[in-house]
């Protein structure tokens, strides 16, 4: 990494983040906002440090329910995407149902899940899964559908079966779409888990924030939001790194 690149990739985002906190702090101080409306970053970081033990504890729960839901979504989304990309009849049959399903706000489903599985991690995992599998399905199916017809002709003339074409061309070709969708899916899964926790749970960051809000401990609510943002960035960065590792050929030109 040369100096210019170091500036763009490290210094620039760091400066921007610090500036954001400073402006926030300044606004709170100038307008003399009460802690219960908008606590300044200094109070938020103070709460973060003071309540670090319960925050870490609850973050752990949110993190693992997110990852569990995300993993299920990955496997299920990939399989369903391949099925949809496989044949137009499957595509035509499943697609409307899928879109209808995706249109349902997942918040509305959480009470039903709690009814079925009780308060605990299971509703959070299922919500994370339900909210995050859709982009994976759509992207995998798109990747498969955009296989060049000429290349398909070349292979079919050689006696390639549908499975051969999928294995040699369709699936490798849809990998950049698949990994691209994982970046979207991981953040969605995170949202799903937290939403489920805020509707009803006995642990997790969402539950922590809900309790803090009930006690008017607004700095803790904001500390929770800050942790959520940080975890979201970390999860995104990990999936982006995995994407780059596995589909480097698709990044040609940008990173060479």
């Amino acid at each position: 990494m040369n100096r210019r690149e170091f500036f763009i990739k490290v210094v620039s985002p760091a400066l921007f983040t610090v500036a954001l906190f400073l402006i926030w702090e300044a606004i709170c101080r100038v307008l003399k906002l009460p802690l219960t409306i908008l606590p300044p970053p200094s109070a938020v970081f103070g709460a973060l440090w003071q309540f670090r033990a319960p925050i870490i504890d609850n973050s752990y729960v949110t993190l693992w329910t997110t990852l569990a839901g995300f993993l299920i979504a990955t496997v299920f989304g990939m399989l369903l995407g391949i099925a949809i990309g496989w044949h137009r009849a499957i595509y035509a049959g499943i697609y409307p149902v899928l879109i209808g399903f995706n249109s349902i706000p997942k918040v509305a489903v959480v009470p039903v899940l709690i009814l079925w599985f009780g308060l605990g991690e299971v509703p959070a995992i299922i919500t994370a899964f339900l909210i995050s599998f859709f982009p994976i399905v759509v992207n995998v199916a798109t990747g498969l559908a955009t296989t060049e017809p000429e290349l398909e002709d070349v292979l079919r003339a050689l006696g390639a079966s549908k499975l051969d074409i999928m294995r040699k061309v369709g699936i490798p070709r849809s990998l950049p779409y698949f990994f691209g969708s994982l970046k979207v899916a991981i953040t969605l899964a995170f949202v799903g888990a937290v939403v489920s926790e805020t509707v009803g749970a006995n642990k997790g960051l969402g539950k922590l924030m809900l309790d803090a809000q009930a006690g008017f401990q607004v700095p803790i609510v904001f500390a929770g939001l800050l942790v959520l943002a940080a975890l979201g960035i970390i999860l995104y960065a990990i999936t982006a790194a995995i994407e780059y590792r596995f589909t480097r050929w698709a990044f040609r030109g940008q990173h060479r």
Partner: protein
Amino acid sequence: MTALVSLDKVSMAYGRGATATRAIEEVTLDIAHGEFIAVVGPSGCGKSSLMKLISGLHPPLSGTLTLEGKPITSPIKAVGMAFQNSNLLPWRNIVDNVLLPLEIVQPHRSRMRSERAQYRDKAVKLLESVGLKGFTDRFPWELSGGMQQRSSICRALIHEPEILMLDEPFGALDAFTREELWCTLRDIQAARKVTVMLVTHDLREAVFLADTVYVMSNRPGRVIRRCSVNLPRPRDLEVTYTPEFQDIVHELRAAIGGRH
């Protein structure tokens, strides 16, 4: 010479019933073993459809279509194809791209695992023979258009097909690169005695390379002229400036017609 491929009054259409579009109308032609034929004609005259027909990817509507006397009913494996777009897989390097057909077609497919090294050597030799020495481990996007097209032709040849089918393979290249590739193709055909069917817009290309040139009419495509090119082989690029060559090109141009 016996005919390798034989078409007798073959018609072909896309779609069915009243909405079907006729692509080819009663085409009769023979392709001999080792012959180099070129098919020329205006855009959309069904040249590419003819390729689909002969490779068995699309069934004829009527007429008989045979390969070595046997009717063509399903895709024939003895064909290698290359198109205007090289269609190389960007996640494979050049040599792995060339090996792709061997992973599909029998008997190579089952031997691929145990004899990969030998197959790889064969692919490398083939690539070197078309002037790609030192580029075999590169990725397609690192190569120029002409080099990609050479690789694409190697991919079409690796399983030693009886017929090489080329659909405007040099259409996207600049004039100088195109002439270089004509010579490459000429040498490949001379060395391997492979039967070639070349679909092209370029009359000079057709006359320079082919033994027989077929001119097709506007859609639905019919063969309106068959022209034997009796220029002696091996042909040099210089031949394209001779009056004999120009006469044949002129004659073909007149047959295609259109406004001038």
